[in-house]
């Protein structure tokens, strides 16, 4: 046996002395390689990568001079002229680069094993230098894009993270300056085939490779999102849907419509960018999009106003903006009635959709066309604030396959961000948000479940014909439809139930189970006369570098598909089972616990890496041998959802043996896996979990404390959450060792925090700036000073100043820069003159969303609030167990943490954070009823919501505050106050000396007084409990009586008694009952307020008397509202 000789063409290429002979050799090499994996392998092993990099770089240097000329000369030319002028000068260097690029592309087509050495050899950078259409002939741009896409496509199949080098591809493509070239390609307005081919390749490249936060942000800054949005808008306009916007100014500014076949590619690329609320809002508020889908009222506070709008439109104009809604089945609105009252309506008429499309749904929803114009009880997708949703729904319902998926996916992203983008009603209230859910329940969720079902049947029955690029494989439909379902139902109980009703659980469980079935390996190893052992000694002419070794082959597409399905199915089940115990039980009954436990197995570590590299396709499907990270994280999420039930914890999960795999994952090197495992652990460590003792004995205190000390904010918070559960009702020894391991110093530091006021820097920055906004003005193409994103009358302009406090680069600026420097056509942003009032609000809201999402100070503040809450609760749980010598544990905690220091910290939480004086500059009022406050979405954000900076007092009842005044109203979040006060309540439940110690903290006691009128009743209740415990009589001994009387007197002197008496008139019954107990105790000790003895009266007698004293009559039982 011997090593394969290097292909002759490679030797020729190396020997070639002139550029012409190099080109000839490259052409030969190209022809030799296409479709011939063994030759590709030999080529790589004989150093082809380095040679190709050299050749590409050499051609770049030779062509460099011409390029610079182009940059200056071609500035004002249109795309078409520029390209033809470049093409005329097709040089030998260009030809050389073209051939090199094609050879690289051919190697990359071989898959992951070939792309790894290409990337390791540094092929990306020289390729990228031939991307800008201003500098590069169009054919070369196409070849470069194809080659990049081939590499990205191969990398996308590496779900095991076999080689870190593969992640570098996208990092290089989607970063400055090369990301600008992508925007240049998209900005070309030519409709020639070659330009359109470039553009569609860019869409695919973005859809295939853009990930994480940095890539989309770079693309956003480069203007790519706006360009694609404009192209999408042009396409929609060209299709001539009814009821589109008629703003003629904007319509003429749209680019020429792209070919129809591009639309789903554009949507996919946009989806890759709109993965955060902010970027999604940027898309929805894009001027082109919002001009063809005229913004509906941003704040239609009740559904009835929307209905009036409809009536008005349909009766007076006939075809109002709602016309697009006629493409969809009509639903009746939910008017403050529970979902069950929904009456089934009449069959649908007058629709554009095919009858078959309708027949399935018609009986469920829809009403007659005749009823439509007169009935005020139909929902419209106007509820979402934009007809873009309607259009996407229509697309989703009429298209098929990947096109349908692209619409569904984008729709899902918009709906996830809807509470931020269209905050027209507080979550949970009836009205628009209910009707929104209703539309999704009936029109979207069943559709997605059906998509999964159809895709499942297809892949089951027919072998899949693989397209050239795997990311466009029809297999993706099943995977992504399940992911879309997961994202859609997250945080919505109604949609979770809708998914169950559509039969999702059975289907998903079936898919999940089948991913463990073996798949025949079609890609059998080809016979070769040469040794394929990579460890064999190398020839002299090859070196050992990674660029000359084939990478790991990765898994076959079928196996990758199965693993992705495994992850997506578990993710979807996790989201469906978020809140309802009955749903969780149904999932459990489908018998998937073993699948979940197997999926929690990580790849084994070996001395050279993980076992993943050597796993055969068959073994890779055996969950017990290890799973890719994406699968483990999904399994953790499902385990977490299922463990939110005492019943399931005590039965299926203990039987399934969940504790051990979760414990093993705590030390996994990947952060997402750690997050997932600690999240599950929080539930497994609850006092009623039968797995708790096993985990504590296994040593999870130490690991959790290490994690709590980590630099990762989320891991810190979750670990402290888990520890808080661990010490609750634990033995004193466990409690003490946990406190020691965590460290008193660390706890003090965490509790103190920096507690920066996230907005102090903001207010300072604004104050120092005067009224001039920071450099938003940039010269436009015509040389005028255009403030692209800030009209001069923008009342919230000062919000931009916040960008100086945290972000490295405000995207608004960057976008403006890129637009001018790229010399993009006029259609891109609206010139200020035509900006409609809504655009101002869009911008104001964008800034808020962005600050909420990206401002470092805001995020740090939120984190501090979250972790302090956990730290306080941890201390509370240490001393919460009255059975186990609570007072001794209180002594221990006070001694360990230094009592005075702890009291000072608690005081700092109770005192209102010094309110920043709002910058009272000339601030025009916001347009009526359109305040840009952010509402925080659903249950998953529950703890985040508690950390929100929006004031505790409902903003909805008051006149809409301006942005600046919202910022100035920061108060301590109620949840943090509750945690603080309850910790004090517990300390007060110790022995008499401890109560006295607490009472001597006069500032602390005084700080509670204003909180007696806090709107959160939990806080008022807690304060009554505090007073109750402070006057508690331990025994009837004379000493105790004396000291209790003393404490009661102090409470009276401090003014606490007066506040408690006022609480007797509280609107919440629980507060009244607690207050009554305190008043009784005080009167028993001291006599009534006026000093006379009255302690003998029974509570019943007191009831009327006391109520009369505070001037509030108590109604009969039940008359008083129990809950606010």
């Amino acid at each position: 046996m011997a090593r394969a000789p290097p292909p002759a063409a490679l030797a020729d290429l190396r020997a070639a002395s002139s550029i012409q002979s190099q080109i000839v050799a490259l052409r030969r090499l190209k022809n030799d390689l296409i479709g011939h994996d063994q030759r590709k392998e030999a080529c790589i092993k004989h150093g082809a990568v380095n040679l190709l990099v050299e050749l590409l770089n050499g051609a770049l240097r030779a062509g460099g001079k011409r390029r610079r000329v182009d940059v200056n000369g071609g500035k004002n030319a249109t795309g078409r002229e520029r390209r033809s002028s470049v093409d005329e000068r097709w040089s030998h260097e260009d030809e050389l680069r073209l051939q090199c690029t094609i050879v690289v592309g051919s190697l990359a087509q071989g898959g992951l094993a070939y792309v790894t050495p290409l990337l390791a050899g540094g092929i990306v950078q020289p390729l990228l230098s031939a991307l800008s259409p201003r500098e590069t002939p169009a054919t070369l741009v196409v070849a470069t894009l194809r080659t990049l896409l081939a590499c990205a496509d191969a990398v996308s199949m590496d779900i095991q993270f076999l080689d870190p080098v593969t992640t570098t591809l996208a990092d290089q493509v989607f970063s400055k300056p090369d990301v600008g070239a992508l925007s240049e390609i998209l900005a070309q307005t030519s409709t020639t085939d070659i330009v359109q081919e470039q553009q569609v390749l860019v869409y695919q490249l973005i859809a295939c490779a853009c990930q994480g936060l940095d890539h989309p942000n770079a693309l956003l800054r480069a203007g790519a999102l706006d360009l694609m949005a404009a192209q999408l808008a042009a396409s929609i306009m060209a299709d001539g849907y009814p009821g589109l916007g008629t703003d003629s100014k904007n319509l003429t500014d749209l680019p020429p419509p792209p070919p129809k076949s591009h639309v789903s590619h554009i949507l996919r690329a946009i989806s890759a960018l709109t993965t955060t609320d902010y970027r999604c809002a940027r898309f929805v508020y894009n001027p082109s999009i919002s001009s063809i889908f005229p913004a509906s009222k941003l704040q239609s506070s009740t559904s009835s106003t929307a209905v009036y709008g409809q009536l008005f439109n349909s009766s007076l104009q006939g075809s109002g903006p709602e016309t697009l809604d006629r493409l969809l089945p009509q639903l009746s609105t939910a008017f403050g009635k529970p979902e069950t009252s929904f009456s089934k309506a009449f069959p649908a008429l007058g629709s554009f959709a095919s009858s078959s499309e309708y027949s399935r749904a018609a009986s469920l929803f829809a009403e007659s066309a005749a009823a439509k114009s007169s009935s005020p009880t139909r929902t419209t997708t106007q509820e979402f604030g934009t007809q873009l949703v309607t259009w996407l729904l229509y697309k989703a319902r009429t298209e098929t396959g990947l096109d349908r998926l692209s619409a569904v996916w984008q729709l899902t992203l918009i709906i996830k961000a809807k509470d931020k983008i269209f905050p027209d009603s507080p979550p949970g209230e009836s009205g628009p948000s209910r009707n929104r859910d209703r539309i999704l329940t009936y029109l979207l969720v069943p559709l997605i479940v059906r998509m999964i079902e159809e895709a499942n049947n297809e892949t089951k029955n027919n072998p899949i014909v693989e397209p050239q690029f795997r990311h466009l494989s029809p297999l993706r439909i099943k995977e992504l439809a399940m992911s879309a379902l997961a994202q859609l139902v997250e945080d919505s109980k109604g949609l979770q139930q809708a998914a169950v009703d559509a039969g999702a659980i059975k289907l998903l469980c079936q898919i999940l189970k089948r991913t463990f079935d073996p798949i025949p390996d079609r890609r059998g190893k080809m016979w070769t006369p040469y040794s394929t052992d990579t460890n064999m000694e190398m020839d002299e002419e090859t070196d050992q570098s990674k660029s000359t070794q084939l990478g790991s082959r990765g898994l076959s597409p079928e196996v990758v598909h199965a693993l992705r399905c495994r992850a997506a199915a578990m993710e979807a089940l996790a989201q469906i089972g978020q809140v309802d115990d009955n749903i969780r039980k149904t999932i459990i009954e489908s018998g998937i616990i073993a699948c979940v436990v197997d999926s929690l197995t990580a790849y084994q570590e070996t001395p050279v890496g993980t076992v993943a590299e050597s796993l055969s396709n068959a073994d890779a499907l055996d969950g017990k041998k290890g799973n890719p990270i994406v699968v483990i994280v999904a399994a953790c999420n499902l385990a977490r959802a299922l463990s939110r039930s005492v019943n399931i914890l005590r039965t299926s999960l203990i039987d399934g043996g969940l504790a051990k795999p979760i414990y093993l994952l705590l030390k996994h090197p990947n952060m997402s896996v750690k997050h997932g495992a600690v999240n599950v652990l929080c539930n497994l460590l609850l006092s009623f979990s039968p797995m708790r003792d096993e985990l504590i004995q296994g040593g999870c205190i130490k690991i959790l404390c290490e994690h709590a000390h980590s630099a990762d904010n989320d891991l810190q918070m979750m670990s402290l959450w888990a520890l808080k559960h661990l010490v609750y009702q634990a033995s004193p020894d466990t409690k003490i060792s946990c406190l020691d391991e965590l460290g008193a110093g660390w706890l003090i530091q965490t509790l103190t925090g920096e507690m920066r006021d996230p907005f102090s820097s903001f207010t300072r920055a604004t104050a120092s700036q005067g009224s001039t906004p920071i450099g938003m003005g940039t010269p436009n193409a015509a040389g005028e000073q255009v403030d692209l994103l800030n009209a001069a009358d923008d009342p919230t302009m000062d919000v931009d100043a916040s960008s100086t406090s945290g972000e490295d680069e405000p995207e608004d600026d960057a976008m403006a820069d890129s637009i001018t420097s790229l010399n993009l056509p006029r259609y891109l942003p609206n010139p200020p003159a035509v900006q409609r009032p809504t655009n101002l609000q869009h911008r104001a809201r964008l800034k808020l969303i962005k600050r909420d999402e990206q401002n470092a100070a805001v995020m740090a503040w939120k984190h501090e609030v979250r972790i302090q809450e956990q730290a306080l609760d941890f201390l509370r749980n240490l001393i919460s167990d009255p059975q186990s010598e609570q007072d001794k544990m209180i002594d221990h905690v006070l001694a360990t943490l230094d009592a005075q220091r702890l009291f000072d910290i608690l005081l700092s939480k109770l005192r209102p954070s010094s309110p920043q004086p709002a910058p009272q500059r000339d601030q025009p009022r916001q347009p009526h009823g359109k305040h840009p406050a952010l509402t925080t979405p659903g249950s998953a954000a529950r703890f985040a919501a508690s950390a929100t900076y929006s004031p505790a007092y409902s903003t909805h009842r008051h006149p809409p505050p301006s942005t600046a005044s919202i910022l100035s109203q920061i108060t301590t979040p109620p949840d943090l106050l509750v945690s603080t006060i309850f910790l004090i309540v517990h300390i007060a439940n110790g022995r008499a000396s401890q109560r006295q110690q607490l009472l001597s903290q006069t500032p602390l006691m005084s700080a509670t007084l204003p909180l007696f009128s806090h709107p959160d009743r939990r806080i008022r209740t807690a304060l009554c409990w505090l007073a109750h415990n402070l006057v508690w009589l331990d025994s009837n001994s004379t000493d105790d009586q004396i000291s209790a009387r003393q404490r009661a007197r102090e409470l009276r002197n401090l003014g606490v008694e007066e506040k408690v008496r006022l609480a007797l008139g509280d609107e919440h019954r629980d507060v009244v009952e607690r207050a009554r107990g305190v008043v009784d105790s005080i009167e028993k000790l001291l006599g009534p307020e006026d000093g006379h003895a009255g302690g003998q009266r029974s509570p019943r007698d007191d009831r009327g008397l006391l109520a009369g004293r505070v001037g509030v009559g108590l109604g009969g039982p039940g008359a008083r509202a129990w809950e606010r």
Partner: protein
Amino acid sequence: LPNSTSSFLRPGSRFTGTQQSDHQVYEVQVDLKHVDMDNSFLCGYLRIQGLTDDHPTLTTYFEGEIIGSKYVFQTKHPEWGSNEKIDMEHWGRFPAWRPLAKAAKSPNFTYKNYAQRENIFMRWKEYFLVPNHRVRTISGASFEGFYYICFNQVTGKVSGTYFHAKSEKYQQLELEHVPDHGCMGAFEFR
């Protein structure tokens, strides 16, 4: 809805009292483990003493469905062996229920704002033994029936009536909240 409505109906609350049959009185302790008003759901442990000689203490896990928007007064679990007549008979034993009697018989009656009423009505059903959930049967004891419960939010008193077709009729559960001075652990599913 928060997952507690009062200082009594919340996770971590403990109640003690008795279950009384014609000739015997057993000591009972109930610990609430989880309260989810949003889903009209709660669960906890029920510990009974002296029921059988072999097992001086028996603890079961129970789940409660809270009558309100999700559950009606009529029991919708045929396997629990109850029917509407039995339901009304048992509910009728609670004085607090009598004003509702007429309306409650309508199959579409929903007990609105249930969380804000002084009295909350529930059904508590035991499911398995704690700690060993696999033990299905115990000689001399059975947890196949369920309790009709009336919970007073103001006083923290729990009254209940056990029902099982084969058990002695109208066994009475009377529990009082164990004072905790507002001390409750901070725990919450993640």
